[in-house]
């Protein structure tokens, strides 16, 4: 066997292995989505969005969970994006190379992989026990704690990618450091910053454990963040483990809704990022 044939054969083998590995990963994804759609699509009707979770055997929907999830995820993301972008910017542009900066980056990485149930317990001690009650705010803070490290990390990475000459060019015109970052660097890294936020959202949208200790769940409709609040993941958790068929059907619908929401937000986000980058 000559050299060229041997190289060709090696190439074929490795491409084959890569394709196989990809297939395994994609296969799992397809199977998950497939079972979600098969089991969930049948349960979707107008009641899902207009009625709250029912008692076993009665008609009902997921309105309280959907609203609770939207409110807590929305507020959690708001906190996470503000904190994450500021922290990431500080790491990339100001103090990242100081001892304090290294410590912050290390702790952020630790937080990045912290078990979510511990975050839930932490917020329980911080916001639930002192105020004698579970609340939507506590849930939002727990979710923010999970998303902020992701946003911080991505922000730092994306800003570090921006060439130094861009900063110099801004400052060579007489702009201050902060102004250059806000008006040039953030803009140049816009798509990347958005990606960070999307990753954060994807991470928290299905989180159950941290909510169990913080927002608890609520079988009634509640849009008051100071009170215990329902959410899709906790509802799924409760319904999926139940003995009632209609509850389990609703759990499938809830899971499908979360998957669709994450998919939609990601797709829209990427589309927006690409469009704004192009114009």
């Amino acid at each position, binding site marked *: 066997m000559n050299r060229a044939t041997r190289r060709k054969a090696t190439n074929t083998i490795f491409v084959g292995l890569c394709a196989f590995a990809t297939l395994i990963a994609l296969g799992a994804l397809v199977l998950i989505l497939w079972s979600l759609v098969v089991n969930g699509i049948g349960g979707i009707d107008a009641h899902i969005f207009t009625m709250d979770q029912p008692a076993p055997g009665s008609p009902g929907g997921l309105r309280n969970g959907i609203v609770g999830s939207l409110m807590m995820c929305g507020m959690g993301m708001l906190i996470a994006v503000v904190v994450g972008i500021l922290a990431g910017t500080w790491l990339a542009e100001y*103090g990242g190379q*100081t001892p304090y900066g290294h410590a912050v980056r290390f702790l952020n990485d630790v937080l990045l992989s912290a078990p979510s149930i511990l975050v839930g317990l932490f917020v329980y001690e911080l916001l639930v026990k002192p105020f004698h009650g579970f609340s939507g705010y506590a849930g939002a803070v727990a979710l923010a704690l999970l998303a902020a490290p992701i946003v911080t990390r991505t922000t730092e990475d994306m800003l570090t990618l921006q060439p130094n*000459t861009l900063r110099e060019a801004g400052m060579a015109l007489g*702009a*201050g*450091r902060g*102004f250059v970052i806000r008006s040039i660097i953030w*803009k*140049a890294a816009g798509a990347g910053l958005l990606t960070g936020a999307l990753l954060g959202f994807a991470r928290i949208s299905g989180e159950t454990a941290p909510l169990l200790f913080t927002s608890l769940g609520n079988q009634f409709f509640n849009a008051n963040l100071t009170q215990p609040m329902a959410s899709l993941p906790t509802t799924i958790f409760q319904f999926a483990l139940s003995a009632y068929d209609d509850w389990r059907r609703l759990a499938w619908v809830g899971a499908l809704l979360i998957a669709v929401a994450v998919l939609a937000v990601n797709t829209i986000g990427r589309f927006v990022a690409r469009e704004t980058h192009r*114009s």
Partner: protein
Amino acid sequence: MNETATTAATIAAATYDAPIMTVPPADKLVLEARKLDFFYGKTQSLFGVDLPIERNKITALIGPSGCGKSTLLRALNRIYDLYPGQYATGRIMLDGEDILSDRGAVGRLRERDGDDAAGDVKSGSTDMSKLRARVGMVFQKPTPFPMSIYDNVAFGVRLYYKKSRAEMDQIVERSLRRAALWDEVKDKLNSSGLGLSGGQQQRLCVARGIAVEPEVLLLDEPASALDPVSTAKLEETLMELREDFSIVIVTHNLQQAARISDHTGFMFLGRMIEFRPTAELFERPQSTRTRDYVTGRFG
């Protein structure tokens, strides 16, 4: 930027004659570096450099890589302030005022105390922004901002003046015309500056730099990333800009220096070797080092 400990050792070992300088009359100078030393932390990379910049002329800096041309240029608007540990001593006179006076000392103190709170200018930041309005800079790689062509040009102006839309329109058009870019972009002022070709982007950066009407425009190898046609266009633009601005250009391209500049400084290992009117320096170099370099015997 590329100076290393080895160059420092080489410098110490070499002997140097006094620089051969033909300095234009003092009243015609807009900017002048005197006995300028520059340090990247502990590494010294400029050694007592003198550089006179004559008003409304083009001054070229040539020399082999690592000789300190870019360092010298970056000292002239103190862009090095961005980086902790970099500092200059000596004098840089801009219209009779020493632009190093406040921070030269501060830089040294910081170096000594190991304070590396990234180069934010704490005191006198307004002076720094004024300085940069008077001494503009264009970089080796085109650096259009991620915004429209119009906003790119208006960026610097908006930092200093509150202009009406009509006034700003005028400034943008005038700057783009002077940078010889107007005809190519007048119909797409609102599209992104990133969509332009490399040569156009570089002329956009020139337009952005001159929009604030600086006295001096510094260019750090502005054509090295451009093809010959774009280079010719840029050179033509610079020759015309000489009417209104004083230009300092660092270049690796000897023909370019010979074509467009009025004065040329030849630098070697952090020192000014010879500074004379361009034609004289290229036709009758007095230092052997200059002669070797311009005739292509080394570098």
